[in-house]
C-alpha cells in the first residue's frame, strides 16, 4: 500500500501543476543544461539493470550511465530514489498525426484514393497539435511510426518523436519505410457472403496482379531512370519506389493470414526484396521460414481476438512468445487505424505477451530496442546508452504493468509536459466537485 499512497501524493501534485498551466500542451524547449537522474533503478535494455544508478544527459544525448556515473558541474539533479528509468517506448505501427477523430472525415488524412500510392508521405500530413499525441506520450510512448493506410501500396511512413512545433521538428526518420498491404486471400464461402466465391477470387487475382505489375513496372522505370533518354518522362509513383530497389528504403508488407504471409514471402524472394512483415497474426505458423529468411515481424497487438473459430483462445497473446522462441526478430506494435487514440497502451500489449510466455525482459525489448532496430533508428533510440538520444521515461514501477505511473519523460533531453487534453478535463471537473 505504500506505493499506492505515494502515488496519491503524486497525483495530487500533478493535479495542481496541471491546473496551474491549464492551457495547450507546449513543446518543450531544448535541453539547456546537463541533467542527472540519480539513485534510480536504470533499465538500459541493452545491458543489465543498474540498481541505484545514475544517468546523465546533455545536449539531448546520454553522456554517462552507471552505478557511479560522474555528474558534471552545474547539472540539474533529479532524485530518482525508488524510481525507474527506461528508454521511451516505441510504437511501430500507428496513424498518429494523420487521424484525429476516426468518425469525423474532415479530421482523417490516412488513405489516399486509388490502390498504388507509393509517392504519398505521412510526414506531410502529421498534425503536431493533435490531442492524441500528448495522450500517447503521457504513458511513456515517446516515438511512433506514423503510417499511411489503404489501397495496396499505401505510401511512406515516418518515425516521429512525439513532441515538436512542426512535423520537421518531430521527424526522427522520414521516409522510414514503404508500406505494401497484401490483399485479403481468404474467400468467404458462407452462403450469405457479400460476394460469390467466384467474384471474390476475381478480386484477389486482380489485386495480386496489381502488386506484380507495380513492382515490375517500377523496376523497369528504375533501370530506365539510370540512363534516361530524351523522351524520359517522370512518374512520381515509380520514382518513389526507386529507393526500395536501391535498398535504401525498407519495404514493410502488411500481411496477416498464413496465405498472405506465404504469398508475400514467396513474392519477396522472387523479387529479391528484403521485407519487414507487419501485423502477422499467423506469423508464428511460419516462424522457421521467417527466421531462415531473416524477416522481422512488427507484430500486431497482443490484445486481439483469435482470427478463426478453432484458434486457441490465447493465440494472439502467445504469438510473440512463439516468435521469440523460434528466434524470429520481432517487435510488438498496435494495429494502426482504430487504435489511434490509445497508442499509449503499447506497453500493456507487451506486458500481456509476457503473461503468456514471453520473458519479461524480452517484452520490454519488444517495445524499445527491437522496434528501434526494425525501424532503423537503433543508433539513436531504443536503449539507454551513451551517445544515444536522451529519450527516456522515469516511472514508479514496471511500465508494462498496472498501475505504474510515468512521472517524467524526456525527448532528446527535453523535459516533456505530461499533461494532455484528458488531464486538463480531469482537473477541470475535479475543481467542479471541489467547489461544491
Amino acid at each position: 500500500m505504500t506505493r499506492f499512497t505515494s502515488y496519491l501524493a503524486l497525483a495530487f501534485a500533478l493535479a495542481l501543476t496541471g491546473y496551474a498551466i491549464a492551457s495547450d500542451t507546449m513543446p518543450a524547449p531544448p535541453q539547456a543544461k546537463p541533467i542527472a537522474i540519480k539513485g534510480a533503478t536504470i533499465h538500459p535494455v541493452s545491458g543489465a539493470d543498474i540498481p541505484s544508478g545514475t544517468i546523465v544527459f546533455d545536449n539531448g544525448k546520454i553522456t554517462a550511465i552507471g552505478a557511479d556515473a560522474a555528474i558534471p558541474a552545474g547539472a540539474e539533479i533529479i532524485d530518482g530514489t525508488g524510481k525507474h528509468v527506461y528508454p521511451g517506448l516505441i510504437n511501430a505501427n500507428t496513424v498518429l498525426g494523420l487521424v484525429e477523430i476516426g468518425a469525423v472525415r474532415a479530421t482523417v488524412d490516412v488513405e489516399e484514393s486509388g490502390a498504388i500510392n507509393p509517392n504519398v508521405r505521412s510526414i506531410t500530413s502529421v498534425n503536431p497539435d493533435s490531442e492524441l499525441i500528448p495522450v500517447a506520450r503521457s504513458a511513456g510512448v515517446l516515438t511512433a511510426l506514423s503510417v499511411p493506410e489503404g489501397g495496396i501500396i499505401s505510401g511512406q511512413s515516418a518515425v516521429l518523436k512525439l513532441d515538436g512545433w512542426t512535423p520537421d521538428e518531430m521527424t526522427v526518420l522520414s521516409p522510414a519505410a514503404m508500406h505494401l498491404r497484401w490483399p485479403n486471400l481468404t474467400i468467404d464461402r458462407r452462403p450469405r457472403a457479400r460476394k460469390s466465391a467466384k467474384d471474390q477470387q476475381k478480386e484477389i487475382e486482380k489485386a495480386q496482379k496489381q502488386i506484380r505489375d507495380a513492382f515490375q513496372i517500377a523496376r523497369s522505370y528504375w533501370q530506365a531512370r539510370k540512363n534516361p533518354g530524351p523522351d524520359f518522362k517522370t512518374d512520381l509513383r515509380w520514382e518513389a519506389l526507386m529507393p526500395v530497389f536501391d535498398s535504401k528504403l525498407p519495404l514493410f508488407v502488411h500481411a496477416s493470414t498464413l496465405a498472405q504471409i506465404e504469398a508475400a514471402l514467396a513474392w519477396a524472394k522472387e523479387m529479391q526484396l528484403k521485407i519487414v512483415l507487419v501485423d502477422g497474426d499467423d506469423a508464428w505458423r511460419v516462424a522457421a521460414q521467417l527466421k531462415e529468411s531473416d524477416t522481422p515481424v512488427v507484430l500486431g497487438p497482443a490484445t486481439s481476438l483469435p482470427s478463426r473459430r478453432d484458434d486457441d483462445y490465447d493465440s494472439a497473446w502467445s504469438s510473440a512468445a512463439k516468435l521469440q522462441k523460434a528466434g524470429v526478430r520481432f517487435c510488438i506494435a498496435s494495429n494502426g487505424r482504430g487504435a489511434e487514440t490509445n497508442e499509449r497502451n503499447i506497453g500493456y500489449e507487451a506486458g500481456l505477451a509476457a503473461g503468456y510466455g514471453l520473458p519479461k525482459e524480452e517484452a520490454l525489448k519488444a517495445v524499445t530496442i527491437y522496434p528501434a532496430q526494425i525501424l532503423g533508428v537503433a543508433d539513436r533510440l531504443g536503449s539507454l546508452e551513451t551517445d544515444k538520444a536522451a529519450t527516456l521515461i522515469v516511472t514508479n514501477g514496471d511500465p508494462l504493468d498496472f498501475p505504474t505511473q510515468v512521472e517524467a519523460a524526456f525527448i532528446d533531453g527535453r523535459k516533456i509536459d505530461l499533461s494532455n487534453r484528458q488531464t486538463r478535463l480531469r482537473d477541470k471537473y475535479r475543481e467542479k466537485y471541489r467547489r461544491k
Partner: protein
Amino acid sequence: MRFPGCLWLAALLFFAVSGTAQVTTVPKQGIRENDPRVHALTNARIVSAPGKTIEKGTVLIRDGLIVEVGPDVKVPAEARVWDLAGKTIYPGFIDAYSRLDLPETLKPEPTRSDVDTDDPNAKPKEIPRESAKGTRSWNSRVTPERKAADYLNLDKKATKALRDLGFASALIVPGRGVFHGSSALINLQEADVDTMVVAPVVAQHIGFDFDRDGRDGDRGYPNSLMGAIALIRQSFLDATWYQAAQDAYRKNPATTERPETNASLAALAEQMQRNPAVFETEDELDLLRALRIADEFKLKPILFGNGHEYRVRKTLAEKKPALILPLDFPKPPEIERPEQALEVALDELQHWDRAPSNPARLAEAGIPFAFTTEKLEKPEKDFWSRVRLAVRRGLSKDAALAALTTTPAEMFGVADRLGSIAPGRMANLVIASGDLFADDERVLTTWVDGHYYDTDQARERDVRGTWELTAEGKMLPLVIEGKLEKLDVKLGGEKATVSVKDDAVLLIAPAKLFDKGEGSVRLSGQVIGETIAGTGDAPATPNLRWSAKRTAAFTPVKKPDEKPSPLDKPLDFPETYPAGAFGRVAAPEQPKSLLIQGATIWTSGPQGTLQNADLLVTAGKITAVGLGLKAPGGAAIVDGKGMHVTPGIIDCHSHTAISRGVNESSHAVTCEVRIGDVIDATDIGLYRELAGGVTAANILHGSANPMGGQNQVIKFRWGALPEELKFADAMPGVKFALGENVKQSNWGEKFKTRYPQTRMGVEQIMRDRFRAAQEYDAALKKKQGLPVRRDLQLEAISEILSGKRLIHCHSYRQDEILAFLSVAREFKIKVGTLQHILEGYKVADVMAKDGVGGSTFADWWGYKFEVYDAIPDNAAMMNGQGVLTTVNSDSADLARRLNTEAAKSMKYGGLTPEDALKLVTINSAKQLRIDAKTGSLENGKDADFVIWSGNPLSNYAHVQQTWIDGRKYFDRAEDEEGRKAFAAQREALVQKALTERLKEIGPAKEGDSEKKDDKEPPKISAQEQQRARELEPIYGSGHDKHTCLEDAASP
C-alpha cells in the same frame, strides 16, 4: 397427428374425386372421352405402407381410387391388366416441400447481389418483388394471405422431373417473407391446375427473414433475426386482435369505431387456428426458436430443417415436432491446401462427416420427418443417392419409406387419402424395378390419380443373361452382363455391342464370327419374352435372318473389391455441444463439496481480501470463506497455493452470443425485440471469455435506436442450449441510446430522414412513447369499445414505467445525460445504468443523486466526436462521487481482459485494488440486480469464481480455472489437452475429406458418367489440381501434418 384445419377440406375434396369420372366445370368441346378407368396391377411385390409388404399381389384401381389390394384380388373383366412380375409397388411419394415453378416474386430473395468488380458503375441486380396492393399488412414481409394455389402455373417438365423420382404429390410453398403465405398440396399429373390440387391451403409458412444487407434502408423492418421474431409474435397477436375487433364491430356497428380491414391479418387469424405452421430454419438454434414461438401461440409446428437437427435431437425428441428434411448433405470442404484447410472450422468438417447420418439419428430418437427434394441442386441425380446414403448410414428402409409417404401424409392432414396403398386411397403409386432403397433399382412408372406416367426406364428391357444366338447356320453363345446403362457384351467370346430401346435390340459384332471377313455385322431384332428375332446386314450379306434364345438369367456378382465405403460411417468421435473445437461432451460435474485451499481470496464482499484462505463450496453454492476451513468427507480439493481467487467477472455490456444481428436498427423505437430470442449458445466467444474469467454478462441490443431492444443477462454455461444460459433471476431490461448513433450522424448520406436527427428529437420521442405507454395502460382498463390491441412495444415501455424493467442507456455527452435523467425523473423511471457514459465524470453528482449506475470503458475515447472529452479517470471519478460504477467491455476481445481494464482505474484515478476489482464483480452484479446471487464470494451465493495464476490486477496473471454454479467451465490444463484432441480429430477428418476431394479435383476418368453430364466448368484450376496431386503422397503417408497443427500443440 391431428390437423383439424384440413379435415373439412379433405371431406370436400374426397367428394370431388369420388364420382365415376372426375367432375369438372370446364365446358366440354367435341366428343366426350369416357375411358373405363379400371386397372389391375398384378403379380407385383406390394409395399403398401412402411412395414407392410405383400410378396405377390394385385392393386385394383377404379376411377382414380384404389379399391382393392391383396394377394387374391379378383380382376374384373373391364380392367386393364398390368403384369408387374418382378416389380415393386410403393405408395406414391410425397415431396414435402417444393417450389416448382412459382413466380420469381414468390421465391426467396437472392442472398447477395453480385456486381461486376471491374465495372465501377455496375448496379446490383434488381430483385423482383410484388407491388403492394389491396388491404394488407403494413410490413411487406408479412403476407400470410398469399396462397401458393393462386399462383400455380405448372409446366410439364417440372412435374415430370418430380414424377420421374417417384413423387405423385408435392407441397408447393411460397418461399419469401416472414409470413410466406400458405402452401398447397397438389398431385403431379398432367392436367389442369384445378384438377391437380389436393388441398389448396395446407400450412402457413414462416421464415426468420429480414433485410440482411440493408437493401431497404432504415425502412426495412426487420433487419435482424430478433426483429423477425418480434414481428412474428406481434403478427400473431394482431391476427387474434383483428378477429376480436371485427367481431366486436359486427355486434355494435353503431357505437364502435370501425376497425381496419386487413386481408393479411384475416388470413393469419383463420390459419393459425386451422393449419399447421411450417417454420423454416437455418441452423439448429432456429429449430429451438421455432418451438418456443409454437409453444407461445399454441401452434402445431412443422420444422423445415437445415441438416443440423441431430445436434439438438434430445430437445427435439422431447417436443416431437414434425420435420421436413432436405437432403443437401454438404460437399467435402476444400482442405487440400494447408492454408485453405486452416480456414475450414472443425464444426464444418464434422458436419460434412455426420450430416448423412442426420435422418438415422432422428429416427432413432423417434422424431417423425418427411423428405424433400428442396435445396438439392440436382434432385434428379442426387435425391435417390442421398436417400440411399442415409439408409447406409443406418436409417431403416421402412423409416425412409415413411419419410416419403405416411409421415408427410399425416403432417399435411391427408393420411386418409395419400401415403399408403389401401382401399379408398387415391391411386397414387410408384412402380419400381425392385427395392428402391437399395442401389441400382429405378422408378419405372408413377401413377397419379389413376393415371400412369412412365419414366424413361419404364419400357427398358433387361436383356442381360446368357443367350444362344443362331444366324447363318452358326450357333454362338451371347453373354450380356454389367449395368443396365452400360452393358458388357460378348458374342462367341468376342467383344460386341448391344443397345436396347424398348423392345428393339441392336447387336453389333465382328463379322469374322460368321466368317464374313473384316468389318461388323449389324443385327436388329425384337424382344419377345425370352427370345429375340430379326434381320441383319453383314459385309456382302444383306438381309440375313437371326434369332436368339435366353438360356440363363443374369445373376449380378458382387465384385470382391467393393469394400464398404468410408463414407458409409461417420468417424467415431464424441459429439460435443456446441459442435466444433472446444465444445463439451456434457455439462461439467458439480462436486458435492469443493474446497479451495490456501489462496489469496478477493471476496469483493464485507470480508475484503484474505491471505492464505479457503473457499468452501457445497452443491454449487458458497458455504464458507475463511481461514483454516475443514474439508467435508469426500470433498474435491483444489490447492490454491500462490493462486488468487476472485468472484466471477461480470460484463455489464456485451454483444457476445447473439445470432444474426445485434441491432434492430431500422426503427427508432424497437422495445419489442428481445435479445433473449436470439441467444447463440454456439458462439466461441463464450468459451474465450470464460478463459478470461467472465461468468456472466449483460447481453445488450445495439445503440441505433433511442429506445432499443430488450437485453438478456446470461451465465456462461458453455455447452448448454440458449435457454439454459439465461440468468433466471436477473431483472428484465431494455437498451436505450442517445446521441450520434440514434440520430444517425455517422451512417452516411442515405440516413437523414428518420426521426430523430437531433438530441432534441431524441428527448421528445422518449417523452412521446412514455406517454403512449401510459395511455395504453389506461386503455387496457377500459371495458367498452373495440378490444385493445396488445402491443408488445408499448407493453415493454409500460414495464419500464411500472419499475419492472430497467433501462440501460447508451450515453456520452453531459447534456444528453442530463436531459435523459430529467425525463426519467419526470416519469419516475428506474434507470439501471448509463452505458459508456464517457462524460459521466462531468455529471457524476447528478447521477449519484438519482441513484443511476454508470458502466464505462477503462480508456476508450476519441473515436467519434461525442467521445472527444472522454477521460480514463471517468470510472474512478464517478466512483468517488458515489455512483455505482462498473467497467465493461462492449467487445469480445476486451471482455477477456476485464481484470486489467479494471486495473486501469488504479492508474487513472487511484482506486484501491479492491475497489478496482469491484468495478467488474459486485458492482456489475448490483447494476444488473443479480447481487443476491453472484458478484462476490459470500455465503449462500452461487459459486461463480475464478482462480488466477497471480494478482488478478496484474498484466502478468492469467486465468487457471473459471467456475460457475460450482462447476468448472474452464481449466487451462484441460484446454491444453483439448487443443491436442481437437487437432487430432481435425486431422482425421481432413484425411477423410481429402480422399473425397481428390475424387473431385483429380483428372476425370474415362467413362465417368457423372463428370460427363456435369456441364459446369471445373472449379479447381489446373495449378490447384497439380498441387493437390503433389500433396496426395504427403497426406497419404499419415505422417506429415499441417504445420499449424504441430505448432498449435506447443505451449
